[in-house]
């Protein structure tokens, strides 16, 4: 991964006669974290790999015989699995795009506000501090067609009153809306912090040159914000793909399976049907897809990390 030719820099740095070398020091520093991660990440992975090649219905005798690749064949041929992949992709695209666009827009809106920034920011933090499992419940209450406030207000305005969570054509979008509510402030706050951290000089120079607002945005603001926005994008994507809480509390995958995300299907297979073999196999597919995706998404970030780390 590293393109730098690691010539003989370390020797130079070992100037001050320490007890241990830099190399050992650096390894000692990561040791505590690695110990935890190795045990609690690798053991479950080994377990899942093992189980994915076996028959394993936990309610019937636990982990059983070796069955070769049968679980993989079955998962690949499982329509419900692919449907859940579709739901996850749809949800992730919709939620992440909406959150990024709205979040950035809100950040600009607040950034140029002259007064009350502190209080605005304080209020924006609130959804982040709550758990989807709890606030989701109250969104269910808001969405309710008989008692919910949303339809009540729509009724007052003589607008159509959709069955937010019961209509199979919009249930997924209602889950997206909930996610947007919870996470747009996160994007907005980070984008706002990014905006505020931007250096003043280039913008003053651009102003002197008489550059248009749009040109400033395109050539100065966005390029400078890009790293932080990219980071937020990656964070939100990883979280959205693992969508579970919101679905569990709002729709439980329903109506039918229209909101059944991959992780919810995984939950149903693993913790309702107790077919750990399929569940583990699906988890491995999931991991595989994420690894391939992150190889593309994260390599630039990691390269940046290691380049900066090996710079003197």
């Amino acid at each position, binding site marked *: 991964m590293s393109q730098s030719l690691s010539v003989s820099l370390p020797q130079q740095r070992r100037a001050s006669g320490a007890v241990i070398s830099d190399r050992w020091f650096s390894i000692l520093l990561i040791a505590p974290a690695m110990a935890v991660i190795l045990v609690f990440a690798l053991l479950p992975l080994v377990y899942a790999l093992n189980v994915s090649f076996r028959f394993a219905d*936990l*309610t*019937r*005798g*636990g982990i059983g015989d070796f069955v070769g690749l049968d679980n993989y064949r079955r998962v690949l041929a499982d329509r419900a699995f692919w449907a859940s992949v579709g739901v996850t992709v749809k949800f992730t695209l919709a939620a992440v795009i909406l959150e990024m666009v709205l979040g950035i827009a809100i950040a600009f809106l607040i950034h140029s506000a002259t007064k009350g920034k502190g209080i605005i920011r304080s209020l924006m933090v609130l959804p982040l501090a709550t758990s989807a499992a709890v606030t989701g419940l109250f969104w*269910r209450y808001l*969405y*309710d*067609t*008989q*008692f919910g406030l949303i339809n009540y207000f729509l009724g007052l305005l003589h607008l159509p009153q959709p*069955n937010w*969570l*019961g*209509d*199979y054509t919009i249930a997924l979008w209602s889950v997206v809306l909930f996610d947007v509510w919870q996470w747009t402030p996160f994007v907005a706050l980070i984008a706002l912090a990014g905006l505020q951290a931007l250096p003043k000089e280039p913008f003053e120079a651009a102003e002197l040159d008489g550059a248009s607002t749009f040109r400033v945005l395109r050539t100065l603001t966005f390029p400078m914000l890009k790293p932080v926005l990219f980071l937020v994008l990656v964070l939100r994507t990883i979280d959205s793909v693992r969508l579970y809480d919101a679905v569990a509390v709002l*729709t*439980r*995958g*329903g*109506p*039918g*399976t*229209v909101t059944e995300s991959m992780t919810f299907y995984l939950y*149903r297979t693993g*913790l*309702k*049907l*107790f077919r750990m073999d399929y569940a583990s196999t699906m988890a491995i597919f999931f991991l595989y897809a994420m690894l391939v995706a992150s190889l593309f998404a994260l390599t630039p970030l990691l390269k940046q990390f290691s380049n900066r780390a090996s710079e003197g």
Partner: protein
Amino acid sequence: MTNLLRKSLLAAAFMASTAPAALAQECNDADRVPITWSTIAGFYTDAMAKLVSGFEAKHCVKVNVVNIDNSQLYNKQVIEMVGETGAYDVVTLETSEKAEFAENGFILPMTDYFADKKAQLDDVAPTLAALTTQYKNDTWGLPYYTYTAGYIYRADLFEDAGEKEAFKAKYGYDLAAPTTWAQHRDIAEFFTRKKGDKLKGEELTKDFYGIGMMAGPFPEIQDEMSGVLWSQGSDWLTDEGKVPVDAVEKAMNDYLALLKFAPPAALTVTYDGVMNQMKDGQIAQTYSFFLDQWPNAVQTETSVPGARMGVAEAPEKKAYIGGFLLAVSASSAHPKEAMDFVAYIGGHDAQAEFAKAGGTSTLMSVLSDPQFADPANRTKTGHFSTLLTIFDSMKGFRSNLFDTPFGAKIYNTMQIPLQAAAAGQIDARQAAEQLAESVDQICGGPCPIGK
């Protein structure tokens, strides 16, 4: 049931529950054997605490009650069983889960334990006992609560002269609690009104619906449909362990026909939603509905002026028979004490106490106790007599769903196609076929039925 028989049952039950009293005379807190009971959260908590201390007074045992949300109870218990942790000594099982726990050795048979307590066993409503405690000729515990379904309706609407007249004029027969599903549909249609229409001669300030239904993403949709399916003489599983696609399709179509008269929230709620709609005066009747909710439903009489609630047997005299079975975990370190606890909670004294608090008892001696038929107790136990009728009508009934060790998994999956059809995503035929397919997948072929 004659008076004499009841008295002898009472006496037997009394003896069974008082016998060990002498043993526990000298008991230090340190000597108490700890047992843990996993049960449903918020389940008559106060009454249960009293019952538990009643048990602790007689036995040298400390009972630890763990409350779990109903929708998570099954998987939480299975995980502890599979892990053989012994964390739960007494588990709480839904009717469809019994066969799985019994077949896979998660719970201990109590046949021997009850060998000399036959009278207590016989006191459990026989219909309920057959479905909840029996599997492959063994007894697996005692049910301590039943949510057997019936029919709950707004009696004040049914007795209103104007409504009666209008109904008769429209349908040609008298408005009364329905005895067939066709009548039930007519009533649902009849009472469906828009805001501004008149109900009982008064103008409605909000939409009114003919029926409240539980088509949300919860297993209760199949409880509702069970009554319809069973009254057709069919079942969720044939004796060959297959889903009868045609019968399910028909039941599904009946269900869809009724759903037109239910509030839109029917697609997102379960029984508590229906009760909220009832208490807010939005619906006229239920479908096949859990009678244990009667104390809840009666609150409509205070929240809706002029309302009076009625309870009856479900149309065609068939409805879901449900009960929470108390069973003893195979990994329990103290099975003897755990069994004593099961016998105590399912026994007459505790059940009578429980009924006073509004719990729906499973014992004939309690259900038929005259004190609970007293009009003064109507708001808590007004449904007991109806329950007795239902048990009587359904005597000898068995469902293959409760006799297959895959019952729990099927039960946790079947709402998916049914609900998809209710939401209009697929039609009844597709739902039945999808159900057949997923049941086939769960069982890996035809489901074994253990009789």
